[in-house]
């Protein structure tokens, strides 16, 4: 089982969260061309190893967060509030 360290609520069972996809992808600006939007919406890597992904603490504080998780071992490294993509990475 995953335990997710919610930045607001502390470590919680993953069933309190919903998964929200790849957090390494930056949402294109409104009006960006169709190809850019297409790639953002439909093209996904499936990396093995450390990966950043969105989760939302739906049964808690409802914070969207970025979780760093190893997709091969399910080891969770850390989590932080999603916040602005530009200031995040």
């Amino acid at each position, binding site marked *: 089982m995953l*335990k997710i360290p919610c930045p607001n609520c502390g470590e919680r069972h993953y069933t309190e969260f919903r998964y929200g996809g790849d957090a390494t992808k930056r949402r*294109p600006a409104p009006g*960006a061309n169709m190809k850019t939007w297409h790639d953002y919406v439909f093209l996904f890597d499936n990396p093995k190893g450390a990966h950043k992904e969105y989760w939302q603490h739906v049964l808690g504080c409802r914070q969207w967060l970025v979780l760093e998780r190893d997709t091969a071992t399910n080891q969770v490294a850390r989590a932080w509030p999603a916040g602005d993509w530009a200031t995040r990475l």
Partner: protein
Amino acid sequence: MSHQPRRLSSGGRIDRDGPLAFTLEGRALSGFAGDTLASALLANDIRLVGRSFKYHRPRGFVAAGVEEPNGLFTLGSGGRTTPNMAATVTELYEGLAARRQNGSPSVDFDLMAINSLIAPLLGAGFYYKTFMGPRQGSWMFYEPFIRRAAGLGRALHERDPDRYETCYKHADVAVIGAGPAGLAAARAAGASGARVVLIEQDALLGGALLSSRTDELQESLRREMERALENLPSVEILRRTTALGLYDGNMLALVTRAVNGQPDPDRGESREVVTTLCPKAIVFATGAIERPLLFADNDRPGVMLASAARSYLNRYAVAIGRRIVVATNNDAAWYSAADLARGGAEVTVVDQRLEVDATLRQLAEQSRLTVETGTVVTRALGRRRVVGVRLAAVDAARERRVDCDLLCMSGGWSGAVHLTSHNGAKPVYRSDIDAFVPGELATGQFLAGAVMGSFRLSETIAGGAQAGSNAARHAGFAIAANPTVATAIPDIPYRVEPARKPRTGLPGKAFVDFQSDVTSRDVSAAVEEGFQSVEHLKRYTTLGMGTDQGKTSNVSAVGLVADLRGLSLPAAGTTTFRPPYTPVSVGALAGRNIGQHFRPVRRSPLHDWHLAHGATLIEAGPWLRAWYYRWAGDTVLSAYVEEMRQVRTKVGLSDVSTLGKIDVQGPDAAELLNRVYVNGFAKLPVGKARYGVMLNDDATVLDDGTTARFAATKYFMTTTTAQSAEVMSHLEFLLQTAWVDLNVQVVSVTDEWAGMSIAGPKARTALELCLPGQDFSDAALPHMGCREANVDGVPLRTLRLSFSGELAYELYVPAGYGIALWEKLLAGAAPLGIRPYGLEALASLRIEKGHVAGLELDHRNTLDDLGLGRMASKEKAYVGRELRDRPGLTDPQRWSLVGLECLEPGSRLRGGAILFASGEPLVGHGRGYITSVTWSTERNNYIALGLYKGGLANLGREIVCAYPLKGENVRARIVSPVFLDAPGERLHV
């Protein structure tokens, strides 16, 4: 109390002052407190405990623990009947009613034993080869017969009256197994102050120590270790608890059984409790399991593991045999043999090894064992019980007979690596002990004792203490000094050589897996047919796939495969062990989530009123909603039409509390709405509401709903019932990840507000009657107007909007006032003949009006598919805009919204019907399908909404609605989806 012929007059861990009466197929028997069902049956000299799975061969107990493959019983009666319970781990209790399984008419006289005679036909892959044959449907034909002949106990359909529970538990260190290693580990970890949970499947602590004589040093050691733990307040001991599975993040699933499997319902006890435990560190002290030997007819009742015979003798004071042969390939069995001899039996040790250690010779002399080295058992003799064995020198063909009434076997010991491998750690083979040990473990996991191949008692205890200390340290606790436990008990050496394979060409069968009836010949046949990987072999022969999961068979099977393929044992591989370690009842996994607690149910604030006033309820997603009311009819078909008429001609009241409601507040609220809705919201004035549609990023429709502006920075959004959670998360995602600069807050208030819709030509008059002092004139509250008011000190939000196509208002009050307002409206408007209407009528009214709803908003349709394309703003950016123009989404031949009218009086349209053009063959997926259907009081006909290739370009065309499930093909005409008041005159009055 009946006499127990095999029970010794003294010794053991049974309570002779606690006699217990129980029955086997109605026959009265007796045992003692402390017995298992298995030990009590053996004390009563009952050896035949079942018929085997395929061949219906007579079988006896092989083991004394969880690894037992044969001794499965159906226990209890009525709704408590439980099949396939291993008698070796079933605590005996007063009144226990046990039945043997898989015998027809009885286990003692089993007609199906004829299968033994046709055995050559029933080899590996028999079912696949014979019944899956070329003729289609042959399996369908044969299956019932096979099911009757094969298999174990039967499940039943009665409701289980007992309660089951699931819970969570937290700990720093979990220790699994309370043998000497686990006891030492729990003590060392507990001494550091760490919260320790010690998990033991047995009712008693001690593990292997429990199989030693109670008058020996082992027993005083066991008691001393148990006492030490009971004095450590930070250690919690869970007896009768099995660690079923290991999952990511050191999560363990445990099941705890009630004492004697007999919960007291009056005290609220559960039969079984499943616990999720997430410790910081785990010590696996799961011990080891003895392996059988492979020789012909090694499944005869009276052939059992040496350790089991010792356990029955020392723990339960049951002497099963008087003339015993102990066949072995290792040292440990000699000590079992010595104990059996001390119990008064005449014992012969048959060891395949040519040379054995001098200490064993010495032991044999002291214990007066007859010794045959360099010798193997080639065959067990007897049918319903063993009467002798054939022996042969390892390198010679000549056999000779030795009489015996009990044949003990020991093919060496395998660590119970199952749990450690659940999470992906592959076991590794150690040739020095001819066994698999756990592979590389995740962090925070530690090993102790026999599971890691540590068989000497002193090593086990020291290693256990070390593992316990390491686990506590890993969990963040300081360890002063590594504790030492001194014991005066001499170590028993453990040397082993790989067991000899069964001799070929002899009559009889050598069983590898007793429970699944897989023989060494089946294994070699499977390998010859190409099922060489152990994983394939397992699936082809069903080896290891019984309720015992091959605890006694796995290593022997891998050894055989290695031999047949000329590989080393590690190269042949091992199988993947999966949870659960031992069988667990489905009831325990479900816990309280059964019946109406199967999943959470959401109830409207008006729920109680609906129940009290003749509403029939229906599940709609998680919600229980009022479907129709008895005033309108006894069945939904008659009632909803009557309720529709009520709304079309007078006035009706409907509960819409289930709609999603989101408070949107802040200076940038208008900006947020303008970005998520396809249509403009920037200029929505205060006091007005607007219908809006949201898209997903991929340009499919996410949801529709109405948002009302009550003040400059205060909006009230409603969503569809089905998509409310999705919309909420969507808004939060955008605000928290992409638009963090927007100064706006969104809060779900679905549960805070009760909502009701009052609809019909007399709706305004009704409100004027019920809420005097408020102006409901068209000028004061026009179509799509909204306002907040106070009624008797209670906030009331009124939105004039319509789902039905009639003059209608939605009223919202705080949830706790919902029933009060509802009743006020019904009472006040009684002179107008107001009536409540339910979900079926609500949905039908909107179909007539051509409003799309959940059935059309399935995340696959675009705005244009639903005829909403013109809503989209060309001026502004909105979510999903960029991908709307994809060629696949703009194709005019997409399936899009149409109305349908039935052309065959007396026939009906059906939701899900497949649509075809007139005259074309009715095959394949057609050109579309019906999404929603209703009887229309306006048209006096069945009408429908649906998606059709090319949509309204086909207006007026006749099509066929095929419903193959009922063999119906009904003609219909494509019409506008708005069946009623297209200009909207009824709304603007």
